[in-house]
């Protein structure tokens, strides 16, 4: 479903440049749940950004669902992001003047779906994350865990092939983190492919595979026995 070959990326810093990714090879199959780990500066966020088409690689091959991703125009990237990818951010990134329902409906708006249709669909996804009764609430009226659930509903709304999560539990306490992880595991059980960046060992252990990065290269790539999050809830 996702294949990356000899991926390189460097950022210019003054006169020199910082080589962040030094030839990454990775492939992810459908239904996998992968944690990308590494200390800060290891290149894990950069890798996620490139996979998320938020950033472009300097060299290498990136194929998503059989489609080569390179030299995208802004417009095309926008369409691909909308169609293939769902984002879950550490700081939720809900739009603060839109209520939960409107936030979830936003990707559908950019798909060009009719208002009534997308509201129904958004409500369906909100129900799925257990927040149907909170549909008309603004983000500031929700707790951290609820905000992240709205964000997950939003990521799911457009029915993407791949869910990308950047430290999804980074801003949450342990109990809420486990709640959210239990939910993400449930999504994976239903067949969604999930890729997440984290630096927390226990969160990574809740995935099915861990990829460890250091200084721009993959140190370790192994399948693990998934720790279920429900047992902590």
């Amino acid at each position: 479903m996702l294949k990356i070959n000899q991926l390189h990326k460097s950022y210019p810093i003054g006169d020199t440049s910082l080589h962040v990714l030094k030839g990454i090879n990775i492939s992810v199959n459908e239904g996998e749940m992968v944690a990308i780990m590494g200390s800060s500066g290891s290149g894990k966020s950069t890798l996620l950004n490139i996979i998320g088409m938020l950033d472009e690689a300097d060299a290498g091959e990136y194929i998503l669902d059989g489609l080569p991703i390179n030299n995208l125009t802004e417009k095309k990237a926008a369409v691909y992001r909308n169609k293939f990818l769902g984002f879950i951010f550490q700081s939720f990134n809900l739009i603060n003047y839109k209520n939960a329902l409107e936030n979830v409906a936003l990707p559908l708006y950019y798909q060009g779906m009719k208002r009534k249709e997308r509201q129904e669909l958004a409500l369906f996804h909100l129900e799925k994350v257990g927040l149907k009764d909170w549909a008309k609430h603004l983000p500031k009226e929700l707790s951290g865990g609820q905000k992240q659930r709205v964000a997950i509903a939003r990521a799911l709304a457009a029915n993407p092939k791949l869910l990308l999560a950047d430290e999804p539990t980074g801003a949450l306490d342990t109990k809420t983190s486990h709640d959210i992880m239990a939910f993400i595991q449930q999504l994976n059980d239903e067949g969604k492919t999930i890729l997440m960046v984290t630096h927390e060992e226990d969160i990574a252990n809740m995935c099915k595979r861990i990829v460890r990065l250091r200084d721009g290269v993959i140190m370790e790539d192994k399948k693990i026995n998934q720790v279920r999050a429900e047992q902590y809830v």
Partner: protein
Amino acid sequence: MFDIDLWREIFQSINKNRTRSLLSGFTVAFAILLFTILFGISNGLQNTFKKIFVDDASNSIVVSSGRTTKANKGLQAGRLIQFKNEDFNFIKEEYGNKVEYITSRVFKNVRAIYKGEQSTYPLRAVHPDHQFIEKTKIKEGRYINQNDLEKQTKVVVIGKLVEEDLFVKTTALGKYVNLDGIAYKVIGVFTDAGGDNEERQIYMPITTAQHLYGNNDYVDQIRLTYNPEMNYNQALSFSTLLSKTMKDRFSVAKSDQRAIRVRNMAEGTKAISMMTGVLTFIVFFIGSGTLIAGITGISNIMVFIVKERTKEIGVRKALGASPKSIVSIILLESILVTAIAGYVGLLIGVGVLKWIGPHLKEYFITNPSVSVTLVFGATIVLILSGALAGYLPAKKASKIKPIVALRND
């Protein structure tokens, strides 16, 4: 093309930041308010000047006579210069191609009686051309014609107010009115934009007056309009030439200012059109200056808005917003704020003009107002201004990388 969801997005954004939108709109509203009031007042001043000069055709030349003040060619000072029909004919023949309309005038005051009502009115005995020079508008009946002149018919054309004074319960047309003991048939009633004094005049064929009131061919004044194809300078040199010719004809010294006077309305008209031109320029200068300040204000605030919404725009892009949709949001918000604020300013301005307008008569400001054309033009200018103010910020917004959405700050 109309996208209700896009507008919903924009209204939501404006509504969410009400204070900010209000403040940014205020400058534009104030600019348009100022412009409207200035423009209205300038219009009012022009209306006043136009009204003063609306009485007579703007290309008219008046030739009148008096007593000489200087001795010339052996003739004493203090001699009375009297025009006659032959002088009228002389001008008409000599300068036929430069003259549009020409008339003589004989002035009298007459006591008019109709049944029980009576009053004294000024009378002008004239040629048919007089109608066009004085801009007399016939309300009923007809004006004096060539036939009246030839037959010296006893007919009069009376002003609207004369009719109202004398013909209390009836209309004047076709009735006979007694002027200083002689009965004249009323063949027409007229109105004149020159005001009440003009509408209290009585017109009579010049030949009739010359025959009945003195049995001579004296003329008090000669009025003419120059060929409208002549420009200002040609008109002035024509009146100078006319003055010189007439002075020669009556052996009057060139420097004698009283014996023969030639007054060219073009001088006054020119001065006024120059003044109103300068006034309009000043109004546009101040108005557009203020508007530019307003646009800059909106543009500034839009830049700030874009900066403030950088993360939101990043998120939108991550969710699949195209650059175009980001540009439309910012641009349309800018246009909407500018247009609404501008219209509020315009409405308040028009309201203020309506309210204070009637109290400004004594300051030479008549009926200050703005035209529909101006309102229409202002709409276009406002939309363009909004687009201008929003363009750079919108461009900037569309360049925001969606990666900023991932930054944690």
